[in-house]
């Protein structure tokens, strides 16, 4: 398109290139119908639905939500933020795993080296730690929100139960990560915590023994907590998360206003 003086303007060139890029067979094959990046996308009710339906991540959501659900409030998105923090923790945790060996001889030195020798090591470790604390907090606040809204009432009873399990797993995840730096804080906090588990009648000592891989915190406890922290508990948590999200949809979406 000429811009008056017979030359092609920069804006038109950009548009042309853009169309060529997103109109290519490769781009077309990636983008499902309704993607806002797709060539010729227009804002229509149909495409607004497609955006949600045709994206693997977005289709956790329904196409439409109740209007009160998008109102800005103090409790907006607490559950979603808990999930988001879990994703952040997974990403930062994978980063940390590259620099950490779960053995009593090297664990402390690894953390020290991580904080001083590794690019962004300190920042990522801090994000992982504070993210974990924030996640405990946001899961707890999410539960409080659900309670105050009475959102656990039929048909959502079972999802509340799943949610309590998720809170419990979140606490366990945070607690198992607490030991990994293998410093005085980690060692004795875990000692105090597992001593409390020992008070449970009948199975208390067995639970404590299974957790600690012995009668008290030792080098083998470190490996046990490490495997629980990076693999076993996240695995279980993800399964319950899937059930939790699925039931949110099946039980009629987010609950109504007060």
């Amino acid at each position, binding site marked *: 398109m000429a811009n008056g003086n017979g030359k092609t303007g920069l804006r038109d060139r950009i548009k042309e290139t853009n169309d060529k890029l997103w109109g290519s067979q490769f781009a077309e094959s990636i983008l499902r119908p309704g993607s806002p990046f797709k060539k010729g996308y*227009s804002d*229509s009710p149909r495409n*607004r639905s497609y955006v*949600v339906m045709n994206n693997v991540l977005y289709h956790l*959501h*329904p196409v*439409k*939500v109740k*209007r*009160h659900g*998008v109102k800005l409030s103090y409790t*907006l998105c607490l559950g*979603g*933020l808990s999930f*988001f*923090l879990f994703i952040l923790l997974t990403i930062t945790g994978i980063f940390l795993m590259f620099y950490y060996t779960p053995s*009593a001889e090297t664990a*402390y030195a690894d953390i*020290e080296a991580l*904080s001083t020798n590794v690019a962004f090591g300190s*920042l990522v*470790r*801090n*994000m992982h730690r*504070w*993210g974990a*604390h924030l996640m*405990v907090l946001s899961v707890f606040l999410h*539960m*409080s929100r659900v*309670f*105050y809204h*009475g959102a*656990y*009432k039929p048909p959502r009873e079972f999802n*509340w*139960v799943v949610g*309590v*399990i998720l*809170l*419990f797993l979140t606490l366990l995840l945070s*607690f198992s990560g607490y030991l990994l*730096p*293998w*410093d*005085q*804080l980690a*060692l*004795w*906090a875990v000692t*105090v*915590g597992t001593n*409390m*588990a*020992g*008070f*449970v*009648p009948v199975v208390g000592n067995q639970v404590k023994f299974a957790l600690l891989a012995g009668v008290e915190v030792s080098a083998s406890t470190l490996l046990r907590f490490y495997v629980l922290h990076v693999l076993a508990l996240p695995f279980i948590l993800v399964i319950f998360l899937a059930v939790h999200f699925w039931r949110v949809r099946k039980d009629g979406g987010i609950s*109504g206003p*007060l």
Partner: protein
Amino acid sequence: MTEIPESLLRRSAEAKAKALGLPVEQVLAEMKGEAPPIPPPSDEPQPEPPRSDDVAAMEEAAETSEEIEEAVESVEEEPAPAEEVPAGPAAETPEIEPEQEAEVPAAPPTEAPLIESSEEAVSSPVAGDGAEGDGGGQAEPAAEPAAAAVATAVEDKPSSAGDGSSAGNGAGNGKVAALVSPRPTVPPKGTPEGVRTQRLLTVVKARAIQTVKAEPTDKVNTWPHLMLMEFGALLAITGLLVIMSVVIHSPLLDPANFNATPNPSKAPWYFLGLQELLSYFDPQIAGVTVPTITGIIGFMMVPYVDKNPSTRPSDRKFAIALYSVFLAGAATLTIFGVLFRGLGFNFSYPWKDGVYFDDLKDWVHFE
């Protein structure tokens, strides 16, 4: 008139052109107002096409179903504008009970409001909603054959008034209500002479055809409305986390030493409330009863214990009070454990003896 995007216009023009068998460009031009309208013109959204159950009449007297079909055909054969009466889906015709006679009264224009018994008359917006809400129209013909409705659709062209003799037969029944289509009586601009736009859609007894079960809810599209909010929330929490991570360092004390118990030894903050309880009560109570019974099992049982169906705060004061007490208690115990427990886990004032909490100790010093 507001500006309608070209793409939207084109899409509906394509649909209309397909239905009418006309070239797309012609329909599009008409929609844009660049060409003379196809009669009858419609400036406004397409009226819902009458369905075949609108076209058929139902009455109590038993007759054969052939007559129904004839009656239906007689309406459809009228030289009506094609856009007004697309042949209704055949699947909907069985809604007419075979025993019921079909009458097609072509009401003269002046008789358009066929409401004779106003008691059961349904206001026309209801009919409009019904037809729009779900095109299927959940008919319940077998439910009340005695209360059969007389449904008529009249193409109110003067020519169709020819067999007006049969009009009123159906309408004469005292137990029917007439529905007049919600289209305006004032013809839109550009209407050719002699074409009236008001027509009788259907005559039904109130609630005879469909019952609305679900209340309409006010909904918005997830994209972009909800996702925008969620994206904002994600950005906010990420920002908070990054700032926190830059400003506060994670603690790293001396290497673990089994022979040097620190004083005091504190659990992670989310277990400090429990540890606080342990300093007051027997471990069997604080370590078992409170966390497992109250904490896990108690919480899981909440929805099965709380039988109150209401979610309004004014109806569930006890539940809210109970949870608030729990919340306040947990917060108090935790804060007490974090701030007011010093050497030997004894009571201490944080401003006098210092805070014994290693988690948030290592702040960045800006100098």
